[in-house]
């Protein structure tokens, strides 16, 4: 599984990234986490509310930072 965190590096994007890593640790899921900061690529996913989360090239979340628990169920369903 490849997870991409879309955002310009603002505090919210960093919170989302660390929450994703926590959720992965808690569930024991294997995934690579990448950051996408280039605006062209972010808009290329159709995203204009950052931070956003892309799992295996599909946008699953935009414009908010869920808790690690919410992310766990989101990642399990992805």
């Amino acid at each position, binding site marked *: 599984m490849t997870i991409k965190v879309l955002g310009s590096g*603002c505090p919210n994007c960093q919170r989302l990234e660390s929450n994703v890593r926590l959720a992965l640790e808690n569930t024991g899921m294997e995934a690579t986490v990448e950051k996408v900061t280039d605006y*062209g690529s972010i*808009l*290329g996913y159709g*995203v*204009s509310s950052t931070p956003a989360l892309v799992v295996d090239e599909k946008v699953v979340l*935009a414009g908010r930072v869920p808790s690690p628990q919410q992310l766990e169920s989101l990642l399990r369903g992805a």
Partner: protein
Amino acid sequence: MKTAARAPSLGGFPAVRLAFAAAVWVALYVVKGPVFDWLVYDALGLARSTRLADAVHFFLFDTVKIVLLLVGIIFAVTVLRSFFSVERTRALLGGRREGAGNVLAAGLGVVTPFCSCSAVPAFIGFVAAGVPLGVTLSFLIASPMVNEIALVMLFGLFGWGIAALYLASGLTLAVVAGMVLGRLRLERWVEPFVFETRLGGQVLDPSRQLTWPERVQMGVEEVKSILGKIWPYLLVGIGLGAAIHGWVPQSFFLRYAGPSNPLAVPVAVLLGIPLYSNAAGILPLVEALHAKGLAMGTTLAFMMAVVALSLPEMIILRRVLKPRLIGVYVAVVGVGILATGFLFNAVL
């Protein structure tokens, strides 16, 4: 993750918990006056209407009052805003003409959840969806200028008249400034890559995928996150306010910065630009300044300059706008704030 859009429904609405929280809130709000009267004048034994007693009472009373107001407002506004999104707003604005488009953009700028850190993707997204530059700028001006937290706090501190005035003048300013900037045909001062960016993929609207418990949870987290961020500013603001309240003579500002002094408004705006604070942090200070005779127009101009013209936001917008466009933007909004200040000093 279910991708199907779920319509908002009242399923799982946590009515009992919300009613309980509201009851606690009201009880605290009502009880704070008598409690602090007793604490300051009886338990601490400070004599009424001495400077120290006034300042201490102001500090305690205002801290509790403002924190309570903030908790209630931030929660309610966040839940309300979870029904709006930049994506939905953009769809509403796409293809609108100038004029009506500017009015709609300014209104939506107030309610759309938006942090300045996502100003750049939002800007590019608007332009890519065919929203005219002037309409986009109306949105970007209204969003920080008419801050709904500031609006409700003005209502709590000064009454509905001033709050309505702030809302009306902020919206008018965003509409007029956006129309002026749109007429100037400044597209050449937008970084070229903006026009080459294409919106791709399946657009996910963040406002359509939430359940009620999720919206309530977002409200609770936003309260924690904002209070966690602004409490130092809040305490400094209330502390300064308390000092002004206790030690600055009555009508001090009336003498030096009253409505008759034409320099008061420009000086207030210039002081406000480098100051960057959350609207909530600046309001306790604003309240104390006004209580000592600073004219309402000057007070509002100061607050608008602090929230709408901020250096960090200019630096973020530099990614998509050339310096000359940022210069014109600051000039047009600045002139608008000055005009608002003078107008209200003259009328009120």
